[in-house]
């Protein structure tokens, strides 16, 4: 049975697990469905992440203890959602040192060359664990353990849109220019967030992502921006630029 924890006067966290695992996603997604079914319009926000779901209730209509009672009822006998239900996205990436300045660093950590880093980053399908940090930004994983690389000591002030990076055992794409501390390997022309798109974001939690290496010409033909990635800058003042 998941734990229900108060996190604000109008919000609860449904805690299902303690650590990150791809096998947890079908449970988290099933919990999202149950919560939406149980509360309907009374749930103002339902925000899944790796191991939890944040629920903000309409406190004007519903008190916290009643929300808690309804949620425990709804989450009893939870069954995982079908693991294959998410969409598989193929994301073309131009892997190059000019737009992926940490390629040599990751190669060095693996004791190999850049080509093998690319081969290994494209070798497996990744789960989308959560959206966050920026509109449409998907936290994905897990990359193979040997490739796990800590975040940069000093985050960049500006990471270019479409940048593909890794941090620890996760991988992600920056949908828009932003500060960021992930190790960059390449860049994609695919738009992750588009206000004209139905549903706005390309990814949903539970989707699967496969990176496909393309060359510079193909990247440009897709409308990719080949401007080299600027160097590492200083940290954001309020420490919020964690990704």
């Amino acid at each position, binding site marked *: 049975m998941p734990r229900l*924890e*108060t*996190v*604000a*006067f*109008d*919000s609860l*966290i449904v805690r299902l697990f*303690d*650590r*990150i695992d791809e096998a947890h996603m079908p449970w988290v997604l099933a919990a999202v469905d149950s919560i939406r079914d149980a509360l309907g319009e009374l749930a*103002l*926000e*339902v*925000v*899944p*992440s*790796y*191991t*939890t*779901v*944040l629920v*903000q209730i309409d*406190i*004007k209509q519903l*008190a*916290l203890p009643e929300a808690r009672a309804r949620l425990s009822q709804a989450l009893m006998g939870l069954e995982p959602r079908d693991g294959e239900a998410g969409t598989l996205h193929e994301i073309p990436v131009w892997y190059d040192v000019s737009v992926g300045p940490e390629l040599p660093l990751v190669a060095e950590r693996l004791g190999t060359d850049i080509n093998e880093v690319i081969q290994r980053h494209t070798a497996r399908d990744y789960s989308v664990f*959560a*959206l*966050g*940090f*920026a*509109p*449409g*930004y998907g*936290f994905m994983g897990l990359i193979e353990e040997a490739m796990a690389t800590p975040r940069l000591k000093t985050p960049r002030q500006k990471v270019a849109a479409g940048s593909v990076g890794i941090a620890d055992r996760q991988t992600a794409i920056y949908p*828009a220019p*932003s500060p960021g501390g992930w190790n960059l390997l390449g860049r994609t022309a695919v738009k992750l*967030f588009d*206000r004209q798109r139905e549903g*706005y*974001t390309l990814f949903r*939690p539970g989707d699967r992502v496969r990176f496909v290496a393309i060359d510079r010409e193909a990247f440009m033909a897709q409308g990719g921006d080949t401007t080299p990635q600027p160097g590492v800058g200083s940290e954001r*003042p*309020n*420490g*919020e630029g*964690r*990704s």
Partner: protein
Amino acid sequence: MTLRVERAGPLALVVDGGRRGVRHLGVTQGGAMDWISLGWANWLLGNAPDAAGIEVMVGGLSLVAEADTLLALAGADLAATVDGAPLTSGQRFTLKAGQTLAFGGPQSGLRAYLAIPGGVLADPVMGSVTSTVREGLGGLDGQGRTLQVADRLEGADRQARQASLARPGQLPEEARSTLPASGVTAGGVAAGGVAAGGVAAGEAVAGENIAGEKNIVRLDLVPGAQIHAFSGTSLFRAFEQQWQVDQRADRMGIRLTGTPLDCAMSGMVSEGIPLGAVQVPPDGQPIILMNDRQTIGGYPRLGALTPQSCARLAQCMPGAAVRLAPMSPERARHEYLQQLAMWKM
């Protein structure tokens, strides 16, 4: 009615109640940092409390009316003037054609709110016109930018709702006791009732402060989340010490500085973050996560401030002294509903 921006100032934004039902997409809430002052400004014109208005931070903005326009101002005292004559915050007024409404600098509080009949006219993006600069969403152009010289502001209605004209042109007594800490300025020195003019800022401050500690703003915190991971000493410190509002403060988060807190939990798996969450990174200095916060994060948290306390904090200058005080979720809900009920007057 049209207002033309003559001078933009550092940060003037179109704000409303923020975006709803979008956080699972990684899109932030946004909206008025001091939602209570926006609510009162709107109340004076008969608008919905969360109708779109202008949030003026620090000052610097000036607007020229192209036709006679009924407006309302609430929140911080930013030394507003109409053609050079002082204009008190907390009232409805007419800006005549050709007149200039200008904001000087902060006298007490940080953010003033200007309401326009029917709310600022703009195309909503994902259900809200609120400007989120970082995400490039909302505002007059839909791209999230701040107000710029030559921008034109229109109200969705030509005039204030009839209902509002029966209301007093100034904020009622009840509003004074719930106004955020508009008397708190740099260094925690209360400006007092005189500086704020018509709105008795001195009284408002007294109502929201710790008894016997006039210049310390009380921030009510609903305990929860990872509070059990903090040591007893740290919890004592969290609620007993006086914290200072740091320079590192923006619409995403506001840092407090003081004797650091220790948390047994070093890292945790990122999870959804509610408004007002008090997170404690490894340096032990809390960060209160505000309207433009990221949607998920991985630092342990003590709980979350009540929405009223978020509004008060939004008016605190760097250097202001604050204390955290525990509050039950029941009490916080009661106070929130009371606030909403006031706008039905």
